[in-house]
């Protein structure tokens, strides 16, 4: 049976992790590679790097991080943030990424997703959707790290992107992100019901019960979280044990 995935996400800026990461046994708390290794050891099912480097020149540091991570962690690695061209994708794959996630560039030019999927295969093209509630049962997508509204309906967008060849949707609720109040289940369920591809729920995890709800009530095939893992509130292993106890199939 296919297992629900637990995916820790690290925000990387200029090659260093931002947002505090608070493991006891880290030598260098800002080194994403070292953090990746800890999550690998804890049994994470996948890793996600979100690059928030502002300047294009500094992006080369990201390739170094991806390269060093892929040399040490033999698990799927998704990298997102600032992916705009086929060449960006190629460079990330050469560095050792398995999947890339595309957000703003897909909104600017939806055909980019189709081109990328044709070139590299749907399995490595993730479309990241940042959505906010815009009325009862309606959600709008945002770009530029959630700063810019688009007027585009999230459900219609998710359908369009999977139609263009996206192999997975990484869905973040902007309303819940950073709140610790749990996933936006209504949003997650609507997207999961609308598309045939796997959906990763993100934004708002504060307790282990939230992870269970994302899969069971939201219909997500994977759950992504940052703070509860970074701050040492819970380990990946604890998260999985909790999910298993609640009857969600996970890889031990």
């Amino acid at each position, binding site marked *: 049976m296919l297992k629900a995935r637990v995916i820790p996400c690290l925000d990387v800026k200029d090659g260093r992790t931002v947002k505090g990461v608070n493991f006891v046994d880290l030598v260098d708390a800002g080194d994403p590679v070292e953090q990746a290794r800890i999550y690998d050891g804890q049994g994470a099912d996948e890793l996600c790097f979100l690059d928030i480097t502002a300047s294009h020149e500094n992006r080369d540091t990201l390739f170094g991080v991806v390269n060093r991570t892929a040399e040490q962690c033999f698990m799927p690695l998704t990298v997102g943030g600032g992916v705009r061209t086929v060449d960006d994708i190629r460079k990330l794959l050469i560095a050792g990424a398995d999947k890339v996630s595309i957000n703003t560039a897909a909104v600017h030019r939806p055909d980019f997703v189709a081109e990328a999927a044709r070139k590299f*295969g749907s399995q490595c093209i993730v479309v990241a959707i940042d959505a906010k509630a815009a009325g009862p049962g309606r959600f709008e997508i945002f770009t530029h790290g959630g700063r810019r509204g688009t007027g585009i309906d999230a459900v219609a967008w998710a359908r369009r992107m999977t139609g263009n060849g996206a192999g997975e949707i990484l869905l973040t609720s902007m309303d819940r992100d950073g709140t610790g109040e749990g996933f936006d289940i209504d949003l997650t369920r609507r997207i999961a019901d609308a598309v045939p591809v796997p959906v990763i729920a993100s934004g708002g995890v504060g307790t282990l019960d939230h992870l269970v709800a994302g899969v069971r009530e939201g219909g997500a095939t994977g759950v992504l979280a940052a703070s509860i893992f970074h701050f040492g509130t819970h380990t990946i292993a604890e998260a999985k044990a909790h999910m298993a106890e609640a009857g969600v199939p996970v890889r031990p």
Partner: protein
Amino acid sequence: MSVAIVDYGSGNLRSAAKAFERAAADAPRRPRVAVTADPAELARADRIVLPGVGAFVDCMTGLARLPGMVEALHERVRAGVPLLGICVGMQLMATVGEEHGIHDGLGWVPGRVVPLAPGEDLRIPHMGWNEIERRADHPVLAGLEAGAHAYFVHSYKMVPDRPGDVLAVTDYGGPVAAAVGRGNVLGTQFHPEKSQRNGLALISRFLEWRP
């Protein structure tokens, strides 16, 4: 000893190469790992790896675009060199692929590559960790104990003509071939290079395999 990973422009090649480099560094004979698009390199290799992501036809086209590569692969397989196909690299071993039309495969393991049937709760691609159930004894798969997990990403599955060529299955809306093989060719639908400890152990055993 040397391992040739065939580079025909397909997907996450580096990620596969890194896992083989790691396994090779720990192997008794410390084989050299070369990522290559040169058929002459295959002639010198003691092990060949055929990776593959994306569509069946794109991968076959990519191979055919390298002059002499398909012939070199056939020649080395006939000569008994151990070959591991990964994901679409495994599917290419079939007789035909039915993704985007009907296309010839390499034909080492008679069979067809057909779509995973989407069901009510079945998302496509089949993406994530799933259990491996061995159907036959094979030295390279020996370490995959009951309940062992591996990482899958695929939308098509291989159906060998001879059930005996299915070495392991996983369950996704019914049994799906997780490993196939005969003689000196072996294929895994899952990605050993992404399957952490289980995957690296499989790669190590492939490096030591003497069919």
